[in-house]
């Protein structure tokens, strides 16, 4: 199963009329990938192109449009790609295979339960605590800043973050943050607290600093006693 992080993207350039054991090569490749349970593959027909034969194939020169370039792409882990490559190498009798490093940011599937949780990691010992102070009405690209920061931290794989709303305060901006009578006019102080390893927080700070207009980031060394992500296999065992 493909997961977030480093992966390989394979692109195969072939021609529509190239055949493999009397069947169109494109179909053969796709059924091979499906049979091997590759996460997904897409074949795209081009409108024009040329290859090793130095002949231009386009919708105008190909009256029956049966000699057009086709591109098949799929993304899989490096090990899976290594495993599939010998067969693909033999199948592509006329064309080009390209492999490049890529980074899977999200892998979602409606039909399956949520993506598997990150393996349990237990943190013990030295870590860093980061507190970020801002106003509740601060915004970033249309959404509340605190929400944008938490989302960003989540994408970065930071262990966790908690948003606190204060009831009164003042700071960099000089004005007092107070609750108004109307919910939309209020600007209460907001603090986000984050605990993770020093290196991970250092990366997060660069991104957060770019998002914030006014505010303060406070860092302190802490000792973490326990930080365990839920362990699904044990939860099931308890039932």
């Amino acid at each position, binding site marked *: 199963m493909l997961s977030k992080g480093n992966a390989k993207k394979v692109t195969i350039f072939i021609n529509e009329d190239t055949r493999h054991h009397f069947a169109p090569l494109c179909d053969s490749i796709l059924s091979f990938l499906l049979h091997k349970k590759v996460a997904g593959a897409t074949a795209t027909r081009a409108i024009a192109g040329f290859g090793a034969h130095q002949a231009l194939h386009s919708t105008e020169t190909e009256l029956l449009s049966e000699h057009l370039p086709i591109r098949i792409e799929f993304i899989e882990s490096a090990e899976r790609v290594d495993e599939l490559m010998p067969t693909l190498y033999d199948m592509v009798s006329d064309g080009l295979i390209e492999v490049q490093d890529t980074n899977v940011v999200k892998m979602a599937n409606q039909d399956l339960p949520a993506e598997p949780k990150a393996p349990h990691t237990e943190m013990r010992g030295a870590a860093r605590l980061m507190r970020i102070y801002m106003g509740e009405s601060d915004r970033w690209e249309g959404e509340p800043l605190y929400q944008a920061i938490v989302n960003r931290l989540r994408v970065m794989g930071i262990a966790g973050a908690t948003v*606190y709303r*204060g*009831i009164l*305060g003042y700071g960099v901006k000089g004005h007092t*943050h107070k609750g108004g009578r109307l919910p939309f006019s209020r600007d209460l102080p907001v603090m986000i607290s984050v605990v993770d390893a020093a290196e991970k927080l250092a990366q997060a700070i660069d991104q957060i600093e770019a998002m914030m*207009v006014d*505010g*303060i980031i*406070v860092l*302190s060394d802490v000792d973490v006693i326990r930080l365990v992500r839920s362990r699904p296999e044990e939860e099931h065992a308890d039932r």
Partner: protein
Amino acid sequence: MRTVNHAQLLRLHFGEADRYEGKPLYEAIVHRCKELQIAGATVFRGLEGFGETAALHRHRAMHNDQPVVVTIVDTAENVARLIPELEKMMDTGVIATSDVECIRIQKTP
């Protein structure tokens, strides 16, 4: 270039029902911090807690006394200047300090 400064974080724990000269104590403290030109102060309300007297601080219809935490970040000198003032104002409660590194972000002039 980012400037990381050494600073002190001060946390004051007391109850929301605590008062100073007729005003809620947390309001009086924020006001006093402003007068003393402390960089900033933020008041947070907790859901439930207990302290010195082991009496539970929580929300009640007749007597709302949820725990309150005031956090202040400033230089060690300013914090040292502030603590005696706070000691005069607070009746029961805890004052905790810790050393922190701080990054100030101020992009608006």
